[in-house]
């Protein structure tokens, strides 16, 4: 049968998103697959060509840190979308909302009374010795007690199909522009696939974001001034900064476009200075304000933190949010959910061994081959070691570093990320590739989760690294039904 011919073999010991068994698609994929497989090879090739064209048209690119030459490259989008049944998604949403509520409660606590530290729910050093712990913003009462207004929580599905949180991103998570571009490309290039699927909309994200940002405005005005603060075109996510500013209809600014005067933040403009109420900042804490943080920063706005402290400008996300997305603190999030919300965690963590704990360190060193080891202070797949794939001397060198600074490392069992058939140009077949999911959660007065999220795909055969900074691709993600 045609279906068999198009799809590669399933990966052993892995949850396949599409097939319950070879040749047996899961119910929510049936109508999409029958439409796909009714296409002739030529029709499929034509659609692939259209996606490629629509993608170039959007100008969606991602800049890699290591690429010096022609740094802009397209972010490959697969033709076969990832589908999540609505009922399954609702469960994920309640887990995400719960997690973000607890993380915001934790941030509000450590910048005020520090009850979680007194009650020893979390070791004090994890917070107080953390480079992202920001004493400059302690004691400030933020609107709704929210610190992380835009969160990206990375989810994976284990071999049994259970969703698990892999990582929290609470500082300046990126990727939402790819999600939006993916949907736009799919709508333009393959509208026939979307038809009749009852796919939940994502196009209104810029409106939701703007509404969330406006709700933070310290001034009670009809049309508060919101800006997007970018480090500039050399940042890997500059495209996204530009895109979101454009979509929200607000100014994209760099540090030099803003200044502080009379205890307020102002934006230089041709029509004279305009008072700024809310800054959606996409630059790191360390560069925000040279008076408080790095005095050599050319990207920030001098005096900004004092205005923030006095409540005359809102910063999203709030400085100091990074303490709560630390890879070691991650292990304590289930405890934080119980402590602040008196609820059981809905979404499971991945089991985590902490280098800071002598017993867990011993286990980590003894079982390095079965583990994925990460530096707590790095992200995006940098500073990470996959024990089973490392060359012996690379492993030895890495473990020597772990022994030297054990508290800088955590380890997790190697997760068999779920797989999804993905079109491979070389074989002209859909072969299983590992995927994850980054949903975006907006917190203001309420918490809102954009349906679906960015599904990232490890494009290399057998790879489990899905980060866009490591050369991954993506899929449009449809919450259906």
């Amino acid at each position: 049968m045609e279906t068999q011919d198009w799809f590669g073999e399933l990966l052993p010991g892995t949850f396949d998103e599409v097939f319950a068994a070879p040749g047996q698609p899961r119910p929510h994929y049936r109508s999409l697959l029958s439409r796909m497989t009714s296409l002739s090879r030529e029709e499929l090739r034509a659609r692939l060509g259209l996606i490629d064209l629509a993608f170039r048209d959007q100008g969606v690119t991602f800049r890699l840190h290591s690429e010096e030459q022609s740094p802009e490259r397209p972010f490959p989008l697969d033709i076969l979308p990832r589908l999540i049944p609505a009922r399954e998604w609702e469960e994920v949403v309640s887990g995400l909302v719960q997690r973000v509520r607890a993380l915001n409660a934790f941030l509000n606590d450590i910048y005020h009374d520090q009850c979680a530290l007194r009650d020893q729910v979390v070791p004090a050093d994890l917070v107080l010795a953390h480079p992202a712990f920001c004493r400059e913003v302690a004691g400030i009462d933020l609107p709704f007690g929210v610190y992380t207004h835009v969160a990206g929580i990375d989810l994976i599905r284990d071999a049994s199909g259970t969703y698990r949180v892999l990582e929290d991103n609470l500082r300046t998570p990126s990727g939402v522009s790819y999600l939006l571009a993916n949907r736009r490309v799919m709508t333009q290039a393959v509208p026939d696939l979307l038809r009749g699927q009852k796919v939940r909309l994502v196009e209104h994200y810029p409106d939701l974001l703007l509404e969330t940002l406006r709700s933070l405005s310290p001034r009670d005005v009809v049309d508060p001034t919101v800006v997007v603060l970018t480090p500039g075109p050399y940042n890997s996510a500059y495209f996204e900064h530009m895109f979101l500013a454009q979509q929200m209809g607000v100014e994209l600014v760099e540090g030099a476009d803003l200044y502080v005067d009379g205890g307020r933040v102002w934006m230089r403009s041709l029509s004279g200075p305009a008072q700024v109420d809310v800054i959606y900042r996409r630059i790191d804490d360390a560069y925000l304000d040279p008076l408080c943080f790095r005095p050599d920063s050319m990207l920030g706005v001098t005096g900004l933190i004092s205005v923030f402290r006095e409540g005359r400008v809102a910063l999203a996300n709030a400085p100091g949010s990074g303490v709560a997305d630390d890879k070691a603190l991650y292990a304590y999030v289930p405890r934080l959910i119980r402590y602040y919300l008196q609820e059981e965690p809905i979404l499971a963590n991945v089991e985590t061994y902490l280098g800071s704990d002598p017993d867990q360190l011993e286990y980590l060193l003894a079982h390095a081959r079965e583990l994925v080891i990460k530096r707590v202070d790095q992200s995006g797949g940098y500073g990470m070691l996959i024990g089973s794939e490392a060359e012996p001397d690379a492993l030895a060198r890495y473990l020597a570093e772990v022994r030297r600074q054990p508290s800088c490392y955590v380890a997790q069992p190697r997760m068999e990320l779920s797989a999804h058939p993905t079109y491979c140009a070389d074989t002209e077949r859909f072969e299983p590739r590992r995927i994850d999911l980054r949903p975006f959660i907006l917190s203001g007065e309420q918490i809102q989760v954009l349906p679906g999220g960015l599904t990232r795909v490890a494009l290399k055969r057998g790879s489990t690294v899905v980060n866009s900074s490591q050369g991954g691709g993506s899929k449009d993600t449809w919450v259906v039904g």
Partner: protein
Amino acid sequence: MTAQGTQLRVQHCTEYRYPLEAKDSFNELWVSPVDSATQSLQAFQLQVDPEVMVRSRDDYFGNRVHYFHVATSHRLLRIASRAEVLTFPAAEPRAVEVASLEPLRPRFFEFLAPTRRIPLQGDWAALLGFPLPGMRDDLLSYLLAAAHHLHARFTYRVGATSVDTPLQDFIASGQGVCQDFAQAMLALLRQARLPARYVSGYLATGVGAEGSHAWIEAFFPGTGWVGIDPTNDCPAGISHVKVAHGRDYDDCPPLRGVRLGGGMEQLSVEVRVEVGP
């Protein structure tokens, strides 16, 4: 010294002269004496030239910070503060053993942890030539002996070090100023796992009186924070005027600022502390 307390008047004047126009100068100051059981703040005034609005807040450690912004072009920035305080002798701390701090350590994480200026790599006790305490040692006796040792081991010399001289260099050269003495003592106490914090302030008489002063405070169960001055080999007393405390100098420098332009500044600082009405 009388039952009415000792009256001290502090004048602290900092002047920056710029060869070129400076503007957009943002500054934070830790200069206002604290108001506490042993130190009553009677009056405090702060004057900035060019004239600007000065605001204040409390920082993470509970210190009062004054801050201001000079937006306009200027060639001179002058910050003058005057304070009047009444100081009272502190009661002798309740005698405790070093061991009594054991259960309290989690509460004082920040005053035990390494900082950029006082890293806990290396054996400070050996470098300073002073032993770590035994569990049964009397806390006050140990602290006074440590202060006495540092006083004898190092020479106080103005200009021997700068604000950014690493602790190791001070120890190697054997001479420095009050800030170096205080940070050396903090290194020793933190290695000994005794919660201790850096104190900035003023001193009426004795060594260090020509400028701002610095000493340390150690925690005594049943009493609270107790000041010890290693530069002068004594407990902090009625001649010490405390302004702020932190983990090290960086948490409470007298002045921190960022500006545009101005060129190579000329700085002059004058501090006067007078006793009596």
